[in-house]
């Protein structure tokens, strides 16, 4: 099956905005409220594997984009299911019921981007420890400034040049 045929099949899902990116990669944009249904639809279609959950901070649009990176071993095809959620209220529903492994990916997205996934029971600190600042992957978190303020300002314990 070619990319076009698959894209047409996906496009049958109401509200789906399908785009063939390149060989073997299809992007599917759906409104946030339909994300879960679309994922279920894609899973049924054959995109049975959740490779990763990617998250992008589109600060200019004031939106977070969640990219569910799906793969079909049968069709040898990747589908990027994209949903956008508002930056002010970063909340979304978990996809754990479809793919249990989504728990770990969402845990990471929660920590790095501050997105809360409803019904995910395990949004505990994952990689960072005692992190009190803005979630680090957000565009408005300035790593260089943070380093300068936090680490570079510390004096050498035994004295000496900064």
């Amino acid at each position, binding site marked *: 099956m070619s990319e076009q045929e698959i894209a047409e099949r996906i496009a049958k899902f109401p509200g789906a905005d399908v785009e063939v*990116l*390149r060989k*073997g*990669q299809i*992007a599917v944009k759906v409104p946030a409220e339909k994300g879960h249904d679309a994922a279920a639809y894609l899973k049924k279609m054959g995109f*049975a*594997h*959740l*490779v*990763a959950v*990617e*998250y*992008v*901070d589109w600060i200019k649009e004031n939106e977070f984009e969640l*990219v569910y*990176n799906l*793969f079909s*071993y049968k069709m*040898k095809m*990747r589908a*990027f299911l994209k949903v956008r959620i508002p930056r002010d209220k970063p909340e979304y529903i978990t996809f754990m019921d479809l*793919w*249990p*492994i989504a*728990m*770990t*990916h969402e845990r*990471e997205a929660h920590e*790095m981007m501050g997105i809360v996934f409803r019904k995910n029971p395990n949004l505990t600190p*994952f*990689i*960072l*420890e005692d992190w009190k600042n803005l979630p*680090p*992957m957000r565009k408005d*978190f300035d*790593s*260089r400034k943070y380093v300068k303020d936090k680490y570079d300002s510390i004096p050498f314990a035994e004295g000496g040049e900064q």
Partner: protein
Amino acid sequence: MKEVDLFFGPQHPGITGNFSVRVKIDGDTVVKAQAIPGFLHRGFEKLMEMRHWMQGPPLICRICVPDADHSETGYSMAVERLAGIEVPERGKYIRALTLEMSRLSAYLFYFAGYGGSIGLYTIAQWAIGDRDYLLDLYEELTGARVYHIFNFPGGPRWDTPEGFEDRVDKVMDYLEKRLKEYDKLYFNNMVFLKRSQDVAVMKKSYAEKMEVTGPNARATGWAIDVRKDDPYAAYPDLDFELITQDEGDSYARVMQRRLEFQQSIDLVRQITKKLRSMPRGNVRLIPNALHWKIPRGEAYAAVESSKGELGYYVVSDGGISPYRMQVRGPSISHGVQVYEEMIVGQRLADVAALMFSLDVCPPDIDR
């Protein structure tokens, strides 16, 4: 509850790298496990947003230390896809050569790790010692032992030196010879069989459910491999069949690597044969390294690293550096959730052994 807390890691010989698993044990049976990653977190994804496109490989190769070439190549491929660059034929072969050599050295590390975790230090010494021959080749080819920074967007940095293929073949012969000795010492060792057979069985359905990839998935009988499913570099032209095991236990996982080790040797030989017959010189398309703008869009590229599918999702807003880059480390599935679930009910003695047999690479979880 009186289940005892035991910490495996971060400072523990029973752990791969800098990682921690807190297990609760009842007697010597694990009843609960909690993987604690993050000790190697460097924020690559953030750092990449502050680097140029071409500054990627020097940084990104540090994601998984024993298997650095796959990290570079994955990133390079994602950028190539985004920019629409095609690597020259010879470049593809050299890329595949480095990848397979990287796989070999990672598998040697794997043999050493699993051997060490069940107490066979001799195999650890042998395997790491033999790995040095591969590192020598790398040094000759790239100038570095560990972080080669060799595979850039557009192709490898330079062509192979004169006579390199012969030296590679020599090392392959040596490794093949050594593999027979490994068989005697290790893979046919009675105690090794006892320790690994029927331990921590991963069923195929479970592997599919939890998105386990790479050799771990193939050891359950699930024939998946990015090299076949989403071919890259020179792999479409190379002749190899996927190897699978059916049992899915620790033994199958180790034997999977052992068989793939042999396969990789064969692949390297195929590549060197081809490289000899190819005209030298054209290995790379060189874009403007310092001010290379890549059109808006996003791309994903995955490579089959020694641990499983290592993927890069790169987003560009048309600027000189990535707008967003995200890594899908292979260990994110089998290192955290799968490990936590699989270790429950196993013996304390197998906590480390399972960690090594799954080949968890902590930095690709932490990034």
